[in-house]
């Protein structure tokens, strides 16, 4: 099999892999794309024959419904998904989502945080839709809900299990207004939703560090795609230029040089620096070091993407996407992710391909293999 440079949608081999092994939502998304392709028309006709003979469940009515869904997704894809932005009015959990301030298709409003949350969600939606044929977080066109102005001077942005939430920043950890400024931060949080709906990686220790890493990987890729950057040109930073006074440096994290982004950045880039922390109620332990050890798979992705060259989302990104959505499970560790990405690279690009070699070399370089 060969890569498909310049393809704006996923190639049939990827779709077939997802249709076969993906979760229900992915299977549906992949299947409706495949159903629309000439390549598989013959199979569909065979299924229709089986249905007529009473031996199958796929029929013309379902095919028509699939076509309608595909068309609806196409319309949404052009717009940026079904976005709604709310103002939490400085309330916390109980106040979510808040007062509705901008819906899909509405003109920009006076509040920059609202517009940034709206635009970032749209860029992230289009990235997943155009590159991986994924219709929103759940693969079924789920509405993208964002709330801004959460809490007072709140130094965080998070995915709460069903929506995006942004604080204003206090100036200490994040500059005021900084949490909606970087599309990689927005895509990072939305990718937590994708992970929740697919691999459902447990937010603890190695599976938790993988959960964090997939968010950084796709966070960075959404930014690179938006800017049209190659792997060589990208800065590979997460949260560039939004740090407050308590953090000295250029960004929150660097996938290129983990541990170098700011003066409190203790991210490991290889297993030699792995922080074996317990996942307990001590806030300092960070769910077993999920934001420290994510540097290891982050750096593996960087190494693979730069070795392959070109646009990182085309080969490395596709390999990581298929791995996240079809191969990993709640308890998957670094080794499982390494094995799965190598296997997926072999399936998508060939067992003797430079892509598979690059992925294998990357995991060896960071000490996971």
């Amino acid at each position, binding site marked *: 099999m060969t890569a498909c440079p310049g393809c704006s949608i996923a190639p049939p081999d990827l779709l077939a892999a997802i249709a076969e092994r993906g979760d229900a939502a992915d299977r549906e998304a992949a299947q409706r794309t495949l159903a629309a392709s000439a390549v598989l028309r013959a199979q569909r006709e065979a299924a229709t024959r089986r249905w007529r003979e009473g031996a199958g469940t796929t029929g013309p009515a379902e095919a028509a419904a699939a076509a309608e869904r595909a068309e609806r997704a196409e319309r949404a894809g052009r717009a940026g998904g079904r976005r709604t932005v709310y103002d939490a009015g400085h309330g916390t959990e109980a106040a979510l989502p808040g007062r509705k301030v901008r819906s899909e298709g509405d003109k920009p409003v006076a509040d920059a945080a609202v517009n940034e949350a709206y635009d970032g969600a749209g860029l992230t939606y289009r990235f997943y839709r155009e590159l991986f044929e994924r219709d929103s977080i759940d693969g079924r066109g789920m509405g993208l809900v964002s709330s801004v102005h959460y809490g007072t001077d709140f130094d965080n942005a998070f995915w709460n299990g069903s929506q995006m939430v942004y604080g204003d920043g206090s100036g200490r950890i994040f500059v005021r207004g900084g949490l909606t400024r970087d599309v990689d931060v927005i895509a990072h949080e939305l990718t937590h939703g994708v992970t929740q709906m697919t691999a459902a990686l447990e937010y603890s220790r190695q599976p938790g560090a993988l959960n964090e890493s997939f968010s950084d990987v796709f966070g960075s890729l959404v930014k690179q795609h938006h800017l049209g950057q190659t792997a060589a040109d990208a800065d590979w930073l997460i949260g560039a230029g939004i740090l407050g006074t308590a*953090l000295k440096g250029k960004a929150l994290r660097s996938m290129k040089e983990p541990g170098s982004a700011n003066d409190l950045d203790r991210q490991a880039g290889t297993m030699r620096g792995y922080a074996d922390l317990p996942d307990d109620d*001590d806030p*300092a332990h960070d769910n077993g070091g999920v934001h420290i050890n994510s540097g290891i798979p982050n750096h593996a992705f960087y190494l693979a993407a730069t070795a392959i060259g070109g646009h990182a989302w085309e080969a490395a990104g596709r390999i990581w996407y298929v791995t996240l959505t079809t191969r990993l499970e709640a308890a998957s560790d670094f080794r499982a992710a390494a094995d799965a990405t190598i296997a997926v690279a072999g399936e998508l690009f060939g067992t003797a391909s430079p892509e598979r070699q690059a992925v294998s070399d990357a995991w060896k370089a960071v000490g996971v293999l």
Partner: protein
Amino acid sequence: MKVSVVRGGGLAGVVETTTADSERLSEGDATALREKVDAAGFFDLPGEVERPPPGGADRFHYAVTVEDSGRAHTVRRAEPDLPEALGALIAWLSSVPGAESGVAPPGG
């Protein structure tokens, strides 16, 4: 009365510690601190609660310790599980003059 708030996790993953000693606050703020601790029913709160099912990510985690008249108590909670009055105490403490705060990398 001494209060310390340790906050970890979040998108940044860093650990911020904020401490306040009523002896070093203005009289009005010292009174407000005591009132907020009382309003939270702090010494009656369980130290830990059953953790919520996974779903969210990048949430804050807190450990709040209050020392007063020879007794000490620590309450640990993820942000969505914070009782409202305890959340109000934490928010107030982060901006009260005389409180001290520092940021450290995760790892403890």
